[in-house]
C-alpha cells in the first residue's frame, strides 16, 4: 500500500495530480487507487491537497494516515504537511516555490524546478504535469505509460500534447536524478548517522482546515 499526498495552493492543479495518479493506477496499472481531496471553501487560494491511496487490494480505509510520499508545490503546503510524512518518507518539491527547513534524518528529498520548467515551456499551468512526471520517475509507484494514458479526459484536449511533453520533461529529470543518486550512493555508501527521530503518535490526522 502506498499513501501519497499532493499539495500546493489552489489553482496549481493539485487535485488533478491526484486524479491522474489515481486513474492511472486504477485503470491502467491494475491496482486499486482511491483519491480523496481536502475540500473546503477556504481552499480558495490557500493551501490545498489531494491524497491517493494505492493498493494491490481493494482500498477500505479511504484516507492516507501517514503518507510515505509528499509532493509539495508551495511553502504553505510544505510547512503544513511535512510533519505528517513518515520518518522514512519521500519529499518531492518544487525547488523555486519551497524553501526546505531542516529535515528529519531518513526522509529522502527530491526537488525539481517544475514551475520554471513549465514557464520555459510557455505556461506555468503545466507545472503540475512536470511535477507529476518527476514524481512518477522518482517514486516508481505508478508506470509512466499508465500516467500518460490517464491524461485524456483530465486535461483539455487542446493541451494534451503539451501536457505529455511536460510530464516527460519531469519524468526524465527524475530518472536522471535517481541515476545520479545511485552513483553517489555507491560512492559514499554510508549508513545514516543519526538515529531516526521518534515516530510521531500514529493517529489519523484530523482533517485540517484549509
Amino acid at each position, binding site marked *: 500500500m502506498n499513501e501519497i499526498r499532493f499539495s500546493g495552493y489552489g489553482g496549481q492543479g493539485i487535485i488533478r495530480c491526484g486524479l491522474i495518479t489515481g486513474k492511472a493506477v486504477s485503470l491502467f496499472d491494475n491496482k486499486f487507487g482511491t483519491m*480523496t481531496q481536502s475540500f473546503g471553501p477556504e481552499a480558495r487560494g490557500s493551501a490545498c491537497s489531494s491524497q491517493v491511496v494505492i493498493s494491490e487490494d481493494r482500498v477500505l480505509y479511504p484516507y492516507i494516515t501517514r503518507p510515505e510520499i509528499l509532493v509539495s508545490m508551495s511553502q504553505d503546503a510544505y510547512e503544513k504537511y511535512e510533519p505528517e510524512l513518515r520518518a522514512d518518507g519521500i519529499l518531492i518539491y518544487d525547488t523555486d516555490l519551497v524553501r526546505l527547513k531542516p529535515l528529519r534524518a531518513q526522509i529522502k528529498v527530491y526537488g525539481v524546478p517544475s514551475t520554471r520548467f513549465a514557464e520555459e515551456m510557455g505556461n506555468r499551468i503545466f507545472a503540475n504535469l512536470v511535477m507529476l512526471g518527476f514524481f512518477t520517475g522518482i517514486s516508481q509507484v505508478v508506470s509512466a505509460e499508465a500516467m500518460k494514458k490517464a491524461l485524456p479526459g483530465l486535461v483539455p484536449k487542446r493541451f494534451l500534447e503539451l501536457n505529455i511533453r511536460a510530464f516527460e520533461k519531469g519524468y526524465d529529470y527524475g530518472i536522471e536524478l535517481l541515476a545520479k543518486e545511485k552513483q553517489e550512493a555507491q560512492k559514499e555508501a554510508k549508513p545514516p548517522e543519526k538515529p531516526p527521530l521518534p515516530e510521531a503518535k500514529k493517529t489519523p490526522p484530523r482533517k485540517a482546515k484549509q
Partner: protein
Amino acid sequence: MKPAVRTGSHYITGDVACAEGAIAAGCRFFGAYPITPATEVAEHMAERLPDVGGTFIQMEDEIAAIASILGASWTGVKTMTATSGPGFSLMMENLGLGVCTETPCVIVNVQRTGPSTGLPTQTGQGDMMQARWGSHGDYELIAIAPSSPQDCFYHTILAFNLSEKYRVPVLVMADEIVGHMSEKVVIPDAKEITLVSRPKPKGRKDRFRLYEPGPNGVAPMPAIGEGYNVHVTGLTHDERGYPSMTVEAQEQMMARLKGKIRNNLDDIIHTEEYLMEDADIVIVSYGISVRTGLTAVDEARKLGYKAGLFRLITVWPFPEGRIKALAKKVKAFVVPELNLGQIRREVERCAFGRAPAIGVPHCGGWVHDPDDILKTIKEAAR
C-alpha cells in the same frame, strides 16, 4: 443522442457515479439546487441529460426541486434530485407529499456534518434518523447507503428500481467522502443492467382506480396525458385518489402505504455479511463506515477476535428481523457511525436487551480511526 449507459471502466467520484447510475437507470428528469457536497451530481446531470433526451433544471430552491421531480414523475418519467443536509431539511414537507401520493422518485442526500451549516465540506452521517422521520406524520420509505463510487452507480439503479416497484420515494444516503472520492467504477453493458419500471394499469379506463393495489400491494400507476384523468392529493384519500376526511380512509391509506413496504421486506432489504459465520462481535454498519468497519474487523481477526460485519445497504426499512436473530447468538453489536448514535438506537431496540449495542462515538467531519472501532470490539469482547 448519445448512449445512456457508458459501458466501461471509469475513474470517477461517487457523485458522478450516482449521476451515471441514474442515467443508466433511465432517469430523464433532474431538478435540483446546488449544495456542497452534492452539487457535482447536478453538474454531471446538467452535462449528460441533453445527450440522452432528458431535461435538467436548476430550480430556485430545494423545495422547488423536489416539487418539480414529483410533478415530472407523474408524466411517467423517472426523476431524481440531489442535495445535502440543509436542502434535505427543506425537502421534508414535499417528501411527505411524495410518500402520500405514492410518487416514485429518487432523492440523493450526500451527507455533510450538521447540525445547521455545520461543517459543510466534511463528511457525516447525521441525517439517518431524519431520513426516516423528517417529515410530519407517519410513513414508510426506503433509504439505502452506498460505500463507494461503484456502489453509488449500482445503488442509484437499485434506488430507482425499488422506487418504481413500490411507488415510494427512495433516499440514497451517501456522504461527503463517498460522494467526493474517486475510484474505479465499472459500468456494465446496458443489457446486463436490470431495470424496473412502475407497474402500468391495464384494463378499462373507466374502471380504473388510482390506488387500487396490485398483487404486491402496489397500485399500478398511469402517466398523465393518457386519459385517466387522475386526481392526486396529499389529503387522506380513498382508492380513487379522492380526499376522504374519515378515520377509516386514513386507516386504509396508511395500511396500504405501510403494507407495501412491510410486506415486501425480503425484496427491499439488501444487506451484506462479512465473516459472520462464527462472529460473536458484530459490527453493524452502513455507508462510508462500512469501510472503516471492515478495516477494523480484519485487524480484530488478526488479533484473534471473532469479529464480523453486518452491512446495511438498505438502512430503512431497518432489518429488524436479522438483528433480532443475531442478538440471540452474538455477544455484542458495535455500531460505528459518524453521528452520536442514531442507527445504534435501532440496533439496541431490536436487540431486545439480548446483546448490547455499543456505539463508537463520532461527531462527523472525518471518518473513524479503525483503531477506535477495534478498541470498542476489544472492549465488547471482554
